[in-house]
């Protein structure tokens, strides 16, 4: 008696499943943390590797940030009260704001289960 499915049918099914694998893999792949530093709505620095980086605006030094690959903090700032330094480390989803320097330090494309937060 002949089988219901021939070898070509199995081949077709295999191809369809093979095509769907990249979507599943892409979905579950963890994205790398990227820190962005913004001023007046523009991104002035983008960091993806651990290290210490100077933040400058039109050539003027504003602050220094440190990124350890997972977290970021301000280690030096020209602002008078240094509140941004006192905030310490933040993780993806967090934001450091330096009001006098008008600088925002945050993470790019953070996946969260909410759109915004009241605090």
């Amino acid at each position, binding site marked *: 008696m002949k089988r219901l499915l021939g070898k070509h049918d199995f081949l077709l099914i295999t191809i369809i499943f093979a095509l*769907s694998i990249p979507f599943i893999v892409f979905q579950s792949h963890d994205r790398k943390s990227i820190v962005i530093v913004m001023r007046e709505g523009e991104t002035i620095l983008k960091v993806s590797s651990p290290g210490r980086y100077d933040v400058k605006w039109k050539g003027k030094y504003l602050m220094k940030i440190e990124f350890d690959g997972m977290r970021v903090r301000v280690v030096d700032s020209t602002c008078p*009260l240094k509140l941004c330094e006192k905030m310490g480390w933040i993780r993806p989803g967090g934001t450091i704001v330096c009001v006098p320097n008008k600088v925002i330090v945050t993470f790019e494309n953070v996946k969260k289960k909410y*759109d915004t937060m009241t605090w």
Partner: protein
Amino acid sequence: MQKMRASDRKNISLLRKEVIIYMFIGIAGFLIILLGFILKPPQTYYKLKDVALGTYVNIVIGSNKINPERIAKAILDELKRLTVKFDPRNPKSIIHKINEANGDWVSVDEETFTLIKASIRFAQITDGAFDPTLGKLIELWGFDVMKPHLPTDDEIKETLKHSGYKNVLFDDKNMRVKLLNGIKLDLGGIAKGYALEKARQIAKSFDPDVTGFVEAGGDIRIIGPKFGREPWVVAIKDPRKEEPTDFIYLLDGAVATSGDYERFFEMNGRRYHHILDPKTGYPARGTWSATVIAEDAVTADALATAAFVLGKDWRFVVLEFPKLRGHVMLVLEGGTIKKSDTFKLFEREE
């Protein structure tokens, strides 16, 4: 027999083809559903983050008619205008002018007159728990310049004499304002809410069908539902942890939170924060945070401060504030959570 075998073969062949077709349809359907989950609706929202109103602002705008970047930038310009106008420390501000008038009448524009009147109205309906006349106390504590320190009891008692919303007089006919008793206005507890309402007005003036939200320092005004149909998911900060303590779903309206973690210092193991109790002159005790959902951002902002100040009397707050159109969630000292029944309606996605 030979005939029977041929017929069987034909039937099996047909059955085989049908099975393959159904399997193909099934797999294709599965893949389409899978793709639907993977390829979510394209993000069409323009996001603008900047600093205004002395804090972080996040403008998220979607429009099919007008370039959303144009709308977001117009909103940001407006927020920056209001930052200068209502900052009591800025010599260009109208509030600075009123505070420095030595008790004389000061003519003001309609926007200022309306906002000060609204702030006094909130002081009246909350029996002074929200009070926009604590300028001198805020200065005494150093929270105005972010250099806080602990004043003496005598200094606080003396400065309290120069506060109180009943010391604000209005001349409706000539649109003038006068401060008695050496008080100073500080609209910090309501100006952010007003700015968010203006932001929504501006967005709607560009496109009545605009959607999105505007956030300023944790206060949020919804401009329109996400993709025109879905609620925005708003997390509520846990006052002592990094993770949110709750989630609410907003199609419209506003939410604001007042917490003891925004501006504070610690001395001898005690936390001194910036939300002062107008009756004692000291930081209000008994509450870690107060979140208020309202139809507009002015109400949410003012009532969040009042709810925080009155938090130790939490039964009154959760029962009475819904009558003022504010739906409250309190995190009391120690972490106990209390909510208005009406607040719970916003914790459901539908």
